[in-house]
């Protein structure tokens, strides 16, 4: 079986360039496995989840909802959709390169997209132009490391039982903070985040279920679009 599409060299270069990203990805994956197991998912369920969903934030959100006994399928679908919506943007920017590739390669590239793969693929495009094999290599490394890290987490928990009762329910929040804060690098994004925060707290107090997330998203979009429009008019 051949893992690459045309160029083995490009595939291996994609694999290699992805490895430094794994320094951050592996702890994220291990933590995700630990949280899943402590929320009551069995090892096989965690394996299935990481193989099919392959999205850290989605898995954290699902674990959080499952833990709070709030995992209704409709709202789970909606929340996973929301935390993944930015994939639409990543794929939209890559689609000129991908849309006309043969079906299997195109589907693998779509399935394997992640923030890390996107970042290094764009970097490669800037330097040498697009290579499907490069992107496949990057995705393959992310996929294998992600699943392995999840499973490592699942088996680690057997040695440190009752993690949740120690107050580790805060860990998921810390994960979200570690994802959010580095994104707040300009004034508009900061304002958008603050507006979404206010909307979320009001929503969490007065709406049922997870609707506050949708409310905060709507607020974020309106705030961002308005502020950005106003900035353009000023300049």
């Amino acid at each position, binding site marked *: 079986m051949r893992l690459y599409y045309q160029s083995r060299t490009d595939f291996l270069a994609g694999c290699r360039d992805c490895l430094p990203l794994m320094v951050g990805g592996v702890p*994220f994956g291990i933590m995700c496995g630990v949280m899943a197991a402590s929320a009551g998912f069995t090892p096989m369920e965690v394996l299935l989840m990481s193989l099919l*969903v392959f999205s850290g934030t989605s898995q954290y959100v699902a674990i959080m909802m499952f833990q709070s006994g709030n995992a209704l399928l409709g709202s789970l679908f909606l929340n996973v959709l929301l935390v993944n919506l930015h994939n639409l943007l990543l794929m939209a920017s890559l689609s000129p390169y991908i849309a006309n590739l043969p079906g299997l390669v195109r589907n693998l590239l779509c399935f394997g997209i992640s923030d890390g793969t996107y970042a290094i693929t764009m970097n490669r495009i800037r330097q040498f132009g697009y290579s499907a094999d490069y992107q496949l290599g990057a995705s393959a490394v992310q996929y294998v490391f992600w699943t392995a890290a999840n499973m490592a987490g699942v088996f680690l928990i057997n040695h440190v039982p009752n993690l949740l009762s120690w107050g580790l329910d805060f860990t998921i929040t810390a994960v979200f903070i570690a994802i959010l804060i580095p994104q707040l690098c300009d004034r508009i994004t900061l304002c958008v*985040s603050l507006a979404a925060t206010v909307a*979320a707290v009001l929503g969490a107090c007065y709406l049922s279920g997870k609707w506050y997330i949708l409310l905060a998203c709507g607020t974020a979009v309106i705030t961002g679009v308005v502020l950005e429009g106003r900035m353009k008019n000023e300049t």
Partner: protein
Amino acid sequence: MRPEIVVLIIVMAMAALFTRFASVILLRRTGMPAALQRCLKWVPVGVFSALVASAIFSPKGVLNLSFQNPYLLAGIVAIFLAWQFRNFVVTVGLGTIAMLLLRAGGL
């Protein structure tokens, strides 16, 4: 594997797959409209702000801004760490330790 969990995982997978395939399949000919692009780029910040805000300001579904709220205190510590170090392990590791210390201190 419990059947209900398998269903839950398949639902998650469908949502995630949609976001990965939709751009390439649906917008293959037209491309993503610029207006949609301008809106979508704010969604991640909105989602993560919401998840963090509800978890630290209203952990039990009611607003709790007091210093008796360990989630708020640990959240402030984690936000400070994330802002200072921009490092996943530092933020999650030390943030969690802060929470454990608060719990050990009786909060």
